[in-house]
């Protein structure tokens, strides 16, 4: 269905499509540049596993709601578009929540309210408003994938740092060898506490902007 609707009347090059996918991962990253979707992201990064599930859930919701809104974009009355968008997002979030509860109950318990909070995740609302309302379905799908990947990468980076330094494990496997602990190595207790997520994210923003000089805040 996507192929039919997206058949371009103007010739759009493959490279242009590809930029929808690559831009949000790096130069226009939703978290570090657009400041979107930080809300529900940081609390699930103590361990890598919930972070992976969260990234997957956002990928699913963002891609499908972007696609659906893009299909409906010419029929939605302008005044009630927010409500329509919220209903579409809630529909996909409910799907994700029910699936998680049925097949990954322990992860669903760990994520607790944060699955529901995908509804108010600003990335999804922001992409629907800024992109899907004005673009064809295929670019919208790619834009959804790109933004969800940009979000997921940051989430996974934070989770790796926090789980490795905070618990010495990755996905539950012991990574720091036991002999280190005998030599006096101790896990960093701060990394398990909520504020460390912001410290790690702040550092990522710093590195990202030091690398990409044009992103530096001049104000």
């Amino acid at each position, binding site marked *: 269905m996507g192929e039919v609707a997206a058949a371009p009347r103007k010739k759009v090059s493959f490279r242009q499509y590809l930029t929808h996918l690559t831009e949000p991962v790096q130069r226009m990253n939703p978290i*570090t540049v657009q*400041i*979107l*979707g*930080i*809300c*529900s*992201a*940081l*609390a699930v990064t103590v361990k890598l596993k919930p972070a992976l599930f969260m990234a997957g859930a956002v990928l699913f919701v963002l891609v499908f709601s972007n696609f659906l809104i893009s299909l409906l974009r010419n029929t939605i009355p302008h005044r009630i578009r*927010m*409500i329509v968008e*919220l*209903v579409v997002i*809630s*529909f996909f*979030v*409910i799907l994700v*929540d*029910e699936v998680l509860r049925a097949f990954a109950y322990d992860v669903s318990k760990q994520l*607790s*309210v944060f699955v*529901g*909070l995908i*509804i*108010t*995740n*600003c990335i999804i*609302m922001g992409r629907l408003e800024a992109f899907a309302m004005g673009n064809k379905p295929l670019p919208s799908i790619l834009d959804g994938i790109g933004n969800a990947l940009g979000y997921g990468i940051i989430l996974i980076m934070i989770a790796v740092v926090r789980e490795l330094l905070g618990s010495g494990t990755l996905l539950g496997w012991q990574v720091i060898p036991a002999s280190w602990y005998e030599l006096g190595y101790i896990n960093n207790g701060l990394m398990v*506490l*909520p*504020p*460390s*997520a*912001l*410290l790690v*994210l*702040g550092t990522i*923003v*710093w*590195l*990202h*902007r*030091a690398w990409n000089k044009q992103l*530096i*805040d001049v*104000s």
Partner: protein
Amino acid sequence: MEWLNIVIRTTFLENMVLAYFLGMCSYLAISRQISAAFGLGLAVIFVETLTVPLNWVLKKYFLDPGALAWLHPAFAQVDVSFLTFLVYIATIASAVQLVEMVVERFFPALYNALGIFLPLITVNCAILGASLFMNERDYTFGESVAFGFGAGLGFFLAIVLLASIRYKIRYSHVVAPLRGLGIAFILTALLGIAFLSFAGIQL
């Protein structure tokens, strides 16, 4: 006393912003100006104190398994709890719209102060988050009012604090790549660590 305890705990200990990172987007975007931060904070207190008890009523008489029994005994088997997210967000969206209209009509001064922030609040994660926490924790009605107020107060406190600190460091020499967003994250982390020292307070 139980209620006061909930207010204090949700304001300082389980602060919406500093412990759960809810409402981060507007928290970072609006904290550039103290007056704007103050307005948004007040609006959040107002809306949360309203929507959390409202959603509690909906949960009790509509969403819980068998909650529809008051309508007709035949509905006692019905479980519509899968609609939770949809009902909560719809309540919040319509409550915000309603509050906006009422305030505009009867309290023009307040409307001018809060006006532009009210629509923003619908997609503020702190609002939906408070309702979802209420959903998870089985509060009574009175406790849900206290929880909503405390959650709003916590957001208000955090955003005014950050705005004040950002105002103070205007002329400080921050490393260029860290300016703006980066330093705001670090400041929030330090605030969070400071708030951790409230741990263990019980009334």
